[in-house]
């Protein structure tokens, strides 16, 4: 397992190189002049020129990329164009907030998604099934910024139950301020989880080992919990892992609506202000996190699925599939 993790970590390197290059390249395509962005529209020509030299913008693209990568390997993500602060620090500063929001969103999604998914699979083609499928479809179909606006109108303004924006302090304050953004973020994912759970459960329900379990004379509850759910969970974990990775970066809209001081907003701000070092730093960080979450999911997998665990352990089991993959 240790070896596997090391191999996966090594495999991240080319991916990250690719990510940096692509983002670097895309950002350099932007016609705007970073100097002008930093100094604003009332700056003089000389100061603009000076700023450009200071930023190294007079050098060719590849040279700048090489310099950047050189610094990166020394752990230096550079300083932001906009506020001239260390990128790494800012990213580290914002990341926990986004992670918190993403985790809360995923929790919401799981808490709604899994029970509803199970119920609708077990009661396939009933009213319950149809209505939860329709509801979950509505969930995925709703633009989430729209949902966010409607939620804060209702719960913050009309009812005054929850804060409309920002991140509260103290445990309860934080929790209260987390609810609306987490629901906004979680709804779309919940719908995906419902659908995932349902189809994965339906898949499992058809399996022979479920019949075997029933033939043992154990209760239906035991069949569901011990046999169906544990097996159905495996594909759900992948889906959720992937979603989580995307939530980390995809929380941009939610963070904007609820003034949540996270990485997503930092990135939108940086992209629109062409703060290249900031965007690069944040994206690299995101990509690392994304790969990391995927790795975690794979490890979690091994705990859920002993077949995979023994693969990592390098035991025999020369299945045909393993050979071709």
């Amino acid at each position, binding site marked *: 397992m240790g070896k596997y993790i090391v191999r996966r970590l090594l495999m991240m390197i080319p991916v990250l190189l690719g990510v940096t290059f692509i983002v670097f390249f895309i950002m350099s395509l932007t016609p705007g002049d970073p100097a002008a962005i930093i100094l604003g529209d009332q700056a003089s020509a000389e100061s603009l020129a000076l700023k450009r030299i200071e930023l190294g913008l007079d050098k060719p693209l590849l040279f700048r990329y090489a310099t950047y990568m050189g610094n990166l390997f020394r752990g230096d993500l550079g300083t932001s164009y906009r506020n001239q602060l260390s990128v790494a620090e800012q990213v580290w500063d914002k990341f926990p907030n986004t992670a918190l929001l993403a985790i809360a969103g995923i929790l919401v999604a799981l808490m709604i998604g899994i029970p509803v998914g199970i119920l609708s699979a077990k009661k396939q083609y009933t009213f319950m099934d149809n209505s939860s499928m329709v509801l979950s479809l509505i969930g995925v179909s709703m633009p989430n910024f729209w949902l966010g606006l409607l939620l804060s109108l209702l719960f913050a303004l009309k009812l005054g139950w929850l804060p409309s924006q920002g991140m509260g302090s103290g445990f309860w304050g934080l929790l209260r301020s987390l609810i609306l953004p987490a629901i906004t973020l979680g709804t779309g994912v919940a719908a995906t989880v419902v659908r995932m759970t349902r189809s994965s459960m339906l898949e499992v329900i058809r399996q022979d080992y479920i*019949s075997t379990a029933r*033939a*043992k*004379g*154990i209760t239906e509850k035991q069949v569901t919990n011990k046999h169906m759910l*544990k097996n159905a969970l495996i594909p759900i974990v992948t889906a959720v892992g992937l979603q989580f990775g995307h939530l980390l970066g995809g929380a941009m809209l939610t963070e904007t609506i609820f003034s949540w001081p996270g990485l997503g907003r930092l990135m939108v701000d940086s992209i629109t202000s062409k703060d290249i070092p900031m965007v690069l730093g944040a994206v690299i960080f995101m990509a690392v996190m994304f790969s990391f979450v995927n790795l975690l999911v794979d490890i979690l997998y091994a705990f859920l*699925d*002993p*077949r995979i665990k023994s693969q990592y352990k390098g035991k025999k089991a020369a299945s045909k599939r393993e050979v071709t993959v």
Partner: protein
Amino acid sequence: MSKTEELIRIEDLTVHYETDDGIVNALNDVSLSMLKGETLGLVGETGAGKTTLARSILRLIPSPPGVIKSGKIFFEDKDLLSLSENQMRAIRGNSISMIFQDPMTSLNPVMSVGDQIMEVVEAHNKNLSKEEMEKQALSMLEMVGIPSSRSHEYPHQFSGGMKQRVIIAIALACNPTLLIADEPTTALDVTIQAQVLDMITALKNRLNTAMLLITHDLGVVAQNCDRVAIIYAGQVIELGTLQDIFKRPTHPYTKGLLGSIPSLTKEVKRLSPIKGMMPDPTDLPAGCKFAPRCQFATEVCKQAVPPSYQVSATHQVRCILANVEVQNG
């Protein structure tokens, strides 16, 4: 057939699957009974309704789409079809247990084999202590020839034959009086099949368990059963002892089956197969289900389902030719 020895009696069982493509008539008025300790072979081709019959006994028909339309299943003087779900659960795995066709998929891949055996022990022996349960599970494992030290391993760590042994251990863990084995060796190689069948027979004799052995391999039946039922399109068309079926096959379908198998013992230049194929179970012919393929079929066959004729004390045949034979003989 003395009543005292009768273990299970199925009467006029009819099962349908109500699918989008129409109603699948999987079982049509099947009647069958088994004695304590005997092995009954149930033989038929794909789709004949073997699995459906087996599952009906345990009331494990996937529903929807499966529906038990009518019939009765008497087991130890109770009609299984009228029991509550709780009462039924007490019977499953306890007095009636079942082995499914494919050992590769019949075990839960994420649960250790020991736990899977434990589970059935636990379900039916609530008064035992944890240790006792574990002991019983391990002894079951040893009984099917797997060292108990491997009880914490997972199904994928076992070969096909060993998985089937584990499944047998689960099935026999509570000393059932009836074991239903649905093609227990079809997925295995012949040498392994021999091992597994040998073991099942030995254990079954030791525990005095009756067995319903489902298969499509007449060889397996000939080597392992006391009596045979041939099922075609959801109907038992011939029922008898081994000698009845193999030496005196009466139904044209049974004859055709025996003629289709290349023989190891005799030199046969050409096989004599049955022509045509199984009818569509959503669209069964009105009369004898085999009539469209039968070389002896007459207009009478196509009109009404022939009744079962008692050819001898042990031998029943659902064919009007048998009636002729009975009258002649």
